[in-house]
């Protein structure tokens, strides 16, 4: 597994677990959880600086952009205009051309507005962005995103922060067969087995935030996720046995009394 590197748009990643940075108690906990998770891709949001209280610490003082790939997201954007604006701001802040593109359709479900997503992706790709789209578990939309130039797609497992696990494994399978770019299962993972399952299905990576940050012990869960993603990947590469309805004895009958 030493050479099992994930490559997206010419960039090589060591870890197949990607993590978000929201919802932690403080930056020290964020930093520790990320270290323990072994993730080398870290998503961040773009927001107004607090100008009245400058004593507040900066996230990137804790997460070294030289050590991690910082993946800015357009979290909280419900229109194409907003998503494009935030992506441009993220790039102007000078980390990279990468963007995790989110165009949300609804506050309750946080499901993507896939029409808006494709439109925003087109604009940003034309401007030279490397667009990693947060999308639905819809193979047709995934294909459209790849056709317009997205070097990976990030279908959800379940609604963001829901912890419901993979709601539609069959669609994920079809996406994996339909597009020939890396698939990063993004959102909805609840616990380690969900992450392992995503990798066993053949996902190239898993991105999560709440499953770690919202756990009772986020640092321990970060470690659990690290092993889950690794184990799931190993199992996928190893190739599982087919499911059978009836038993097949493991021990030979020969030699029995």
């Amino acid at each position, binding site marked *: 597994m030493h050479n099992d590197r994930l490559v997206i748009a010419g960039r090589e990643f060591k870890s197949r677990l990607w993590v978000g940075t929201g919802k932690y108690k403080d930056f020290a906990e964020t930093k520790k959880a990320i270290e323990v998770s072994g993730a080398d891709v870290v998503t961040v949001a773009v927001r107004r600086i607090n100008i009245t209280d400058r004593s507040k610490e900066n996230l990137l003082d804790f997460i070294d952009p030289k050590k991690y790939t910082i993946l800015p997201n357009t979290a909280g954007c419900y229109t194409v205009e907003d998503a494009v604006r935030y992506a441009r701001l993220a790039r102007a802040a000078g980390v990279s051309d990468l963007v995790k593109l989110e165009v949300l359709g609804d506050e309750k479900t*946080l499901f993507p507005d896939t029409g808006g997503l494709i439109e925003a992706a087109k604009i940003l790709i034309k401007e030279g962005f490397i667009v990693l789209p947060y999308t639905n578990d819809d193979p047709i939309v995934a294909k459209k995103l790849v056709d317009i130039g997205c070097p990976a797609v990030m279908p959800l497992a379940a609604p963001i922060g829901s912890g419901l696990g993979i709601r539609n494994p069959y669609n994920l399978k079809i996406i994996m067969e339909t597009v020939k770019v890396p698939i990063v299962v993004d959102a909805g993972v609840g616990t380690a087995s969900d992450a392992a399952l995503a990798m066993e299905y053949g996902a190239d990576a898993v991105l999560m935030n709440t499953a770690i940050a919202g756990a009772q012990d986020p640092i321990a869960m970060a470690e659990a996720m690290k092993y889950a993603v690794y184990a799931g990947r190993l199992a996928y590469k190893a190739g599982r046995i087919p499911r059978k309805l009836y038993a097949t004895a493991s021990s030979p009958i020969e030699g029995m009394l």
Partner: protein
Amino acid sequence: MAEPLQIQVNGECRDCRSGATVGDLLRELDIKTERVAVELNLEILDRQEFDRRGLKAGDRVEILSFIGGGGPDDGLGEEGPDPCTMTDW
């Protein structure tokens, strides 16, 4: 001494010295320009423009940076019914 002019910074009204640039404003606010994005009246500025762009009355400045976030929401979201015990779906 010229009258101070009023501008908006991150949605808040603020006095600013006449003739000041965006760079002056950032220094006054003690904001390191590294990893900061600045929008002046909806136009995103290149870093090297900070010291060249003067501010005038009524300007809207947005100063942004990276914060923790992985999902679109900073809270844990709305508590809905527990899906594990939901029966009507």
